[in-house]
């Protein structure tokens, strides 16, 4: 994926969270705290690997503590991608 658009990244993140199987697709919003979406340390690390695969961007799992919602995390990834471009 070559986008830096936060809305596109947000939709991708929502897809990943649903794929992890801890929550139903219509049970959360982009502002729901990640901790309430079952995003524990295992899935935080998995998400880092998925971000690396999808955006060619290496991030540390602590990014989910710095950006505790999908909306905030999408903006954080967008900013890092823009800075790396």
């Amino acid at each position, binding site marked *: 994926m070559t986008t830096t658009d936060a809305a596109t990244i947000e939709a991708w993140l929502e897809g990943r969270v649903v794929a992890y199987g801890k929550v139903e697709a219509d049970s959360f919003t982009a502002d729901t705290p990640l901790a309430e979406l079952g995003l524990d340390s295992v899935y935080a690390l*998995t998400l880092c*690997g998925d971000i690396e695969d999808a955006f060619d961007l290496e991030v540390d799992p602590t990014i989910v503590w710095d950006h505790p919602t999908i909306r905030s995390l999408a903006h954080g990834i967008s900013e890092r991608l823009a800075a790396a471009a």
Partner: protein
Amino acid sequence: MNAPTTAVAVTVASVEGVTATGVRWRMGSWRAAGDVRGRHLLARRWARELVTGRLGRDWEGFAPSEPGRKPRLLGPPGVDVSISHGDDTLLVAVVGSGLVGADVEDEPFAAFQAPSLVRRMCSPAELAELAALAGLDMPWALRRRILASAWTVKEATLKARGVGLAEDPRSVEVDLAALAAGGAASGPAVAIVHLVDGRAAVEHPGNDGAPSAWEGAPGGRGDRI
């Protein structure tokens, strides 16, 4: 202000034990406690009961905690605590001296199927070891269990050090072949790591077949456990 742990009135079936190095632990299903809030309160109640009832120390409560960091007690001096939960299982461990980390993962360990996770949790040496094991026609379910067990050791070690995922889990190397040879056939993957006097003691409560007690491995970064 700390939550009043006495607010939890549910009775939860649990098992207790003590490791060879004196870590007191309790484990059981947290589902009867209700939601995430109920689980949180249950964990704190178990911690208090282990500190007062098993270590025989005073209860001074929890210090304010930071996201992603292990819980800290206000006292007494030397007492350390670690809390972990899976989809169903809650594990609480306390110790009177040294540092403790605990981790539990529930079956079917679906997360450990993902290549993106395996790549981020395993060192190059561990990946090579995993590939060698896979060459022995290892079933996927066993592969997931070995990885889940390895993860609990890594996570418990990082928790004991108080760094969590701020430190790369690939820096904690685990003997995957030993886990494959001695691991449990069913039930949650569990690890308790006790760091004391510069060494790491690793135990797998509830898994009679796994290596336990003093592994003789130094507890420093980069050492194999």
